[in-house]
């Protein structure tokens, strides 16, 4: 396991940012998905010792974050969400400095800095002072400083934030490239579902500091295979009413389509029955293809609803 958390709690005064979080991030790439303020960044900062734990425990790569913080920090790489630059240094100087702080010797750190800057696409700008970098370049240098010492686990906090579409694409390609080498595990915290879908094998959905759902991408989508896309001939008001009487949730899925969520334990029979009762002709009935966004919205919606 890359990360194991047990009743992991982080509080800022009265505010509980991470609430008794218990889960594991296995080796590979894990997406930490949640809306803004869900506690993703706090969770990562807690694992790195950047914010104190209120209670609970955690291990990173088998090392306890409370008792072996230096060993944890040496074996991980962290790309923070906010800007973080060492003013006055050039790109290569900053990455070399990060490498040395992690325990590399000067020569190795310099050599590796050049390699990593080439990888993240900053080879042309490596001798420029980092304060002069654009938003996209700052994201890249943040990734470079996190990668320089070849960590076994990489924490990426909103890695595509502030990047233009091309830069975003390149960043995602890069993350995919790193995770596909299987030498480094990745925990990617974001609220952008497409980023997780593209780069991660597993997802942990969190809201208000709690785990709502977790599992492989395939499993999560499968959980919600009770949604069907239906096309009917003509008006669908009577059909819709019949479905709702049977306990189905109906959402318009375009001009001619309806997305129908059948009640638990029921199948397409409920849709066919509603069509018969309302004398509606079905033109199409297929299992709806769930995107991660559908799953995410549903889980978060249920959680928000439960709190009301």
């Amino acid at each position, binding site marked *: 396991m890359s990360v194991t958390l047990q009743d992991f709690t982080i509080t800022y005064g009265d505010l509980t940012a991470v609430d008794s979080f218990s889960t594991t991030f296995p080796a590979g790439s894990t997406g930490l998905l949640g809306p803004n303020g869900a506690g993703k960044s706090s969770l990562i900062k807690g694992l790195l010792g950047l914010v104190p734990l209120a209670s609970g425990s955690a291990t990173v790569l088998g090392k306890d974050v409370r008792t072996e913080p230096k060993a944890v920090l*040496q074996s991980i790489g962290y790309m923070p969400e*906010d800007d973080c630059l060492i003013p006055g240094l050039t790109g290569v100087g900053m990455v070399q400095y990060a490498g040395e702080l992690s325990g590399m010797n000067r020569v190795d750190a310099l050599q590796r800095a050049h390699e990593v800057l080439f990888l993240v696409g900053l080879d042309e700008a490596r001798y420029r002072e980092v304060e002069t970098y654009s938003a996209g370049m700052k994201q890249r240098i943040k990734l470079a400083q*996190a990668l320089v010492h070849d960590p076994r686990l990489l924490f990426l906090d909103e890695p595509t934030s502030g990047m233009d579409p091309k830069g975003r694409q390149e960043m995602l390609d890069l993350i995919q490239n790193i995770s596909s080498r299987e030498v480094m595990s990745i925990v990617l915290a974001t609220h952008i579902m497409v980023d997780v879908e593209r780069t991660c094998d597993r997802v942990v959905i969190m809201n208000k500091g709690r785990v709502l759902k977790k599992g492989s991408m395939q499993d999560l989508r499968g959980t919600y295979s009770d949604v069907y896309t239906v096309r009917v001939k003509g008006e669908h008001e009577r059909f819709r009413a019949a479905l709702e009487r049977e306990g189905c949730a109906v959402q318009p899925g375009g001009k001619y389509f309806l997305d129908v969520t059948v009640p638990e334990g029921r199948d397409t029979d409920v849709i066919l029955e509603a069509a018969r009762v309302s004398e509606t002709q079905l033109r199409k009935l297929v299992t709806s293809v769930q995107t991660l966004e559908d799953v995410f919205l549903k889980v978060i919606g249920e959680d928000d609803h439960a709190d009301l």
Partner: protein
Amino acid sequence: MPIYEETYRAWHGQLAARPRTWWIIARTGSRLRWKRAMILVLLLAALPFLVRGAQIYVAMRLGDSPELAEMVQELQIDAGFFADFLRGQAFFLVLVLILAGAGLIASDRKFGALAVYFSKPVRFWDYVLGKFLIVAFYGSLITLLPCLLLFLMRVLLAQDAAFLQEYYWIPFSIIGQVALSLLTLGGVILVLSSTTGGSRSAAILFFAMLTVPDLLRQILPSISGLGLVSLPAVLRQTSALLFGLERPFDFSAWLGLGVLMGVAGLSLAVLKIRVRPTEVVR
């Protein structure tokens, strides 16, 4: 056919088990502060050293000449000579500390660099020690180093060992006085750098903190013990204690020493609060 694949490549080296991160921070920070303004101040601060060096040379080598005999008699090269030199360097020390220290933590906070430091195996003590060593390095270049060189010059130019036998303790006094100055003034400039928005405001506040209480002391000489709130006055008093000279002020030099220790301790406490990787906004 591609001749080079742009892909992630692992690094197979060995990380140091206990990296001396404070040293890496001090080394890199000192290099970054080596700029034109700093070099200019260092050169200006070397002038008093050259003058004092010339004085020692004249006294030791040309003292027998009848034209210079009177001047040499007036020039006493004793503990007061070295204490005076350090006091004369105080102005340059303030300038150097401002140039070296005012932006040290302020810019790290402004650019979010603390997150980089503390996501590496860098503890609070490593960070603060590294930053302190930067100001201590430049401060020592214009105080400790030239003062010790002057002492060495005086010893080497002497015909006998009488001076060394009488004043063997002066190097320790020099080291002690410079350490006190750097611990307090260096601590204060780091605190101001961590609490103010930028290097300019830290520099102005630092200058004000040193001059305003000293002006008050001079305007209101009747108030006994007012010198204790003036760091320059307290440092003069401890200098007199360390170099065995007559005390210039009426408060206890030991009390002054306590004030300096208190300032250093308070600085550390404030830094502990201000130097954090994450700002919590409530």
